[in-house]
């Protein structure tokens, strides 16, 4: 037998072994004493690719919460355990992983996600399987409004609330000076929704606005030069965007030297997040003066618990910043813990009933979960980007969010109408 055939033989043995292993997985039953059986949380998030950062940040938050809870004796005497799965930003992979987690690993809860498409796919399955799915990072209003159902919750803001907050702040600060708007949004559901919501919310407070230019770069664009030169040549006064992550970082690096931040008042829907700008130094081109929104501006929140928990995240992840996804994962785990303890068992229906309308505890204060759509009324802090002496990276300052917080989320009446209409 030649060397090539030998290697081929060995490789085939490996492949057959893999098949056998998977079949073994089929027939083996995990055995554990009922009382000490862990309560399982299935965490789905992209762990590779350009959104890996958000997945690992959420995992950090979940891990910190689980460590704390287990140290304190667990939930009803049972330890909490998380199983992390990579969705690879693909709805079919996300669905497959969700099915495996629920049907094979028998998780009690599903959690996570940043991509709205994937979240919708998993949500559909959660509804069929009657498993609670707590969305953290995905921002589409569809998840809780049009396509909301009994088993899906969102702990975190949604796109409407964030856009509404920044629109209101922008209207207050710049409404009299900025009526001609230039827009750039990634060409997909989130980008279009943010653009429409901004027009609505800003337009409500500032009369006579006009969108003079609207661009739709593909999600994942890294070269914004043609867009920048296009709107630098326009007569716009304000720039609105919903870029985030790597796109936002690339955009800022190109836009600041080109003078975009001098010509325009810049408003962004998202991305006041630390994980994106964490490597930006004081000497680098930075988006100073931009109005952005973030869900965990722990540097300025008036609650000592925020900084404390942030420190724990930084410790766990080994980073010099704490990401909003971490606090969302953290809060979600604690919300489930409180619900389980309150109803006395891991009973999905009772937990859903308990959480509806409930004010849950979080490191930023008390947050109410709206009964009609299971959307947590998470404060979408808006602020102006600046450097402060205490932190090496730029972040939002003078944080504010509209009060009362119900105003910055769609009302139950609106949602009822929306659901009836479809």
């Amino acid at each position: 037998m030649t060397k090539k055939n030998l290697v081929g033989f060995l490789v085939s043995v490996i492949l057959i072994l893999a098949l056998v292993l998977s079949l073994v997985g089929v027939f083996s039953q995990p055995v554990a004493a009922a009382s000490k059986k862990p309560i399982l949380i299935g965490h789905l998030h992209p762990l590779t690719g350009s959104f890996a950062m958000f997945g690992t940040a959420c995992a950090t938050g979940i891990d910190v919460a689980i460590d704390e809870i287990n140290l304190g004796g667990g939930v009803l005497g049972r330890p909490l355990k998380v199983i992390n799965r990579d969705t690879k930003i693909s709805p079919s992979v996300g669905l497959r992983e969700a099915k495996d987690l629920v049907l094979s690993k028998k998780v009690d809860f599903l959690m996570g996600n940043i991509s709205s498409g994937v979240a919708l796919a998993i949500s559909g399955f959660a509804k069929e399987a009657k498993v609670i799915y707590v969305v953290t990072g995905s921002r589409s209003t569809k998840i809780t409004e049009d396509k909301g159902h009994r088993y899906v919750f969102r702990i975190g803001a949604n796109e409407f609330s964030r856009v509404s907050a920044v629109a209101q702040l922008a209207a207050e600060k710049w409404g009299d000076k900025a009526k001609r708007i230039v827009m750039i949004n990634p060409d997909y559901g989130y980008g279009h929704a943010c653009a429409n919501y901004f027009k609505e919310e800003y337009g409500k407070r500032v009369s006579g606005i006009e969108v003079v230019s609207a661009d739709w770069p593909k999600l994942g664009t890294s070269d914004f030069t043609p867009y920048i030169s296009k709107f630098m040549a326009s007569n716009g006064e304000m720039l609105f965007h919903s870029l985030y992550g790597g796109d936002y970082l690339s955009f800022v690096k190109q836009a600041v030297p080109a003078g975009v931040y001098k010509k325009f008042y810049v408003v962004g829907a998202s991305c006041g997040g630390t994980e994106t700008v964490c490597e930006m130094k004081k000497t680098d081109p930075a988006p100073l003066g931009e109005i952005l929104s973030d869900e965990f501006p722990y540097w300025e929140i008036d609650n000592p618990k925020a900084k404390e928990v942030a420190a724990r995240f930084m410790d766990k992840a080994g980073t010099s910043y704490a990401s909003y996804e971490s606090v969302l994962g953290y809060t979600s785990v604690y919300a489930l813990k409180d619900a389980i303890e309150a109803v006395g068992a891991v009973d999905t229906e009772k937990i859903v009933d308990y959480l509806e309308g409930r004010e849950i505890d979080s490191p930023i204060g008390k947050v109410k979960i709206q009964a009609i759509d299971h959307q947590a009324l998470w404060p979408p802090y808006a602020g102006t980007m600046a450097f402060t002496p205490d932190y090496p990276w730029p972040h939002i300052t003078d944080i504010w969010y509209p009060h009362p917080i119900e105003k910055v989320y769609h009302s139950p009446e609106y949602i009822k109408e929306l659901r009836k209409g479809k």
Partner: protein
Amino acid sequence: MSSKVQLKTISVNGFLHGVMRHRWAWLVIAVGLMAAMPSFVGMSWVSILCEILILTVAASALNLIIGYTGMISFGPAGLYAVGAYTTALLIVKAGAPFGLAMIAGPVAAIVVSLVMGWFCVRRTAVYFALLTLAFSQLIHIIIFKWYGFTGGDDGIVEIPVPGFLFSIESYYYFALACTVVCLLAMWVIVNSAFGKALQVIRENPGRAEFIGINVRRYQLMAFVIQGFFLGVAGSLLCGFNHNVFPPIADWTESIHMIIACLLGGMFHFFGPFVGSAVYILLDRVVTSFTEYSFLVLGIVIVLLVLFFKGGIAGFVSERLSAGRPKGN
């Protein structure tokens, strides 16, 4: 090489030889085993098996033109998505009955593959491949951008599937039946005169032309047949997932199908089935054990190409012909 390994090889060959001789009996047993699976394994695995069946249909369709006709297509995902979205849109927007929508999927795929194929078969080899890729990406973009109609990247979710097909187990039986029918149909096609002509075209298009085969027309027909079965796979996917999303039309989906074909052996009829099964099971096993699934899968793919050029089925049949007594 040591005699121990030789002995092992010979007995493996003997076994495989026996299999090949009683081919049909083994096939019936295999189908029976597949049908009995739900009684032995959990729903999670039945779900995986269902995915394998759907990928088998798609990869076998692709094999018709890659393996049998020798035309490398990089764009099966586009037609696959056409089937899936047609079924989804008919059910959700037009309220069509499930059966009608499932049939409409492959029919729409035939129409689109006719148009796509007409442009593509006029080119050969690399250019054919690239043009199929471009068309497939355009289909992806159309699905993605036509928000009002297809829902864009929000997808179409909660597609109502009739009650008797709703559970994973019952849908599995349905998919198994469809797969068996499709494979039977494909078997008939590849063993017919038409199928033989396709293989002649693969080996030597010039000569085929010379003996009177209208190469372009046959290639187009093969492309359309491929489109039909890809549409079936897409429709099955729609019914299985109860949703459709634009990424099923993306080039990475095409790559999965090509790998399944290659892994199993693209010059063998059951290659795609073996390839789909191994590919999906491997992915399942790897993702449960490690966060670095890309690394492991990448290494497997590289090893596969280097040492398993003919795929698993190719390797198996190589062993067979090695073990066969000389003069046969």
